[in-house]
């Protein structure tokens, strides 16, 4: 409960601490959480305590969204059997799909697949980018687990009637949750493949995927195996810097 007293005290505090310029010599705590977070793809079996999952959901609830429309709905699944079943389902679908897409094999089948794959890539240009295409391949070979053995999975559903760009709002909300989880020492990984679950009415019913909701992303939550967090080298991106009537490219 927010009392008037609380509000006054926080206001005073912020005015006292306002300075014209503050030097940041070290990474701030928030920066460390952002920079050191890695996607975790191997988890310990230990379940995440309920209160931490709820704290993660709270971080998501307070994410900014266009017009404050909050176009999300969360589904938390913590049953191993259900998660395993979902994994099996997605692997089966990947097997079927990849048997049609695999143009690497020879013969007439390979040639037909080549035509089919090129057509599908044009239709699903984001979903069949070479990287997810490769992911479908390794999933169909059962070399890759959908939820990486995580004990808890948070599904994010999107209300399609959201304001402006609800997909972006869902992304912001998820990122809030992911960063909060990392600050608790938990590991997370975004799983886009959960979209495949919409192909079965069984899963749609269980997860409540019906109008106006769409299943968008899943976030696996668990205690990471080993010590996987840390800063890494990554591509720099060209940035256009426009100032004082000049524009220049920086990296």
């Amino acid at each position, binding site marked *: 409960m927010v009392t008037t007293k609380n509000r006054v005290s926080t206001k005073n505090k912020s005015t006292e601490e306002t300075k014209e310029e503050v*030097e*940041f*010599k070290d*990474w701030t705590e928030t920066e460390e959480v952002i*920079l050191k977070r*890695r*996607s*975790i*793809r*191997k988890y310990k079996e230990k379940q995440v305590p309920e209160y931490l999952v709820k704290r993660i959901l709270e971080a998501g609830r307070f994410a900014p969204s266009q017009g404050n429309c909050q176009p999300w709905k969360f589904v938390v699944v913590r049953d191993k059997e259900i998660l395993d079943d979902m994994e099996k389902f997605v692997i089966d679908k990947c097997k079927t799909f990849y048997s049609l897409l695999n143009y*690497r094999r020879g013969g007439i089948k390979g040639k037909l697949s080549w035509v089919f794959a*090129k057509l599908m*890539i*044009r239709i699903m*240009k984001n979903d069949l*980018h*070479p*990287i997810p*295409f*490769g*992911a479908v*391949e*390794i999933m169909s070979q059962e*070399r*890759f687990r959908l939820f990486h053995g995580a004990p808890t999975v948070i599904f994010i559903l999107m209300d399609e009637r959201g304001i402006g760009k609800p997909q972006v709002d869902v992304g912001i909300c998820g990122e809030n949750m992911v960063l909060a989880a990392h600050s608790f020492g938990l590991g997370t990984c975004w799983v886009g493949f959960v979209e495949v679950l919409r192909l079965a009415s069984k899963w749609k019913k269980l997860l409540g995927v019906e109008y106006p909701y769409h299943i968008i992303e899943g976030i696996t939550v668990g205690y990471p*195996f*080993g*010590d*996987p*967090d*840390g*800063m*890494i*080298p*990554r*591509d*720099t*991106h*060209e940035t256009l810097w426009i100032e004082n009537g000049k524009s220049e490219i920086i*990296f």
Partner: protein
Amino acid sequence: MSYIRFIDKIRIPNYYNMKIVTTGKAIIDEEKCNGCGLCTKICPGRALGVRGEGKEKKAYMLDEEVTPCVSCNCCYAICKKDAICSTTGFDFNYYYKQIHRGAFELPRKYT
């Protein structure tokens, strides 16, 4: 400066053609690697494996030609011996051509 030509825009690359595709690559320092296999367990593309016996156990890239490596550097982050690192990204060319990218760098601190 890299840019998208008309041919790039309309052509879907052949994902397995090594003449046009540059896949990610993790460089393994065999002197430092102790073959613990942590990197193979967490690799998102399942691009790494371990071979050899005893002290000669070393990590290696499974499919040297078309690697499923996405240059995420998760292996770099988990490696205790500092033996593995990816310094170049992937580029599938044509429709999926990478543009406006610079060299790999660690987080930079501006003061």
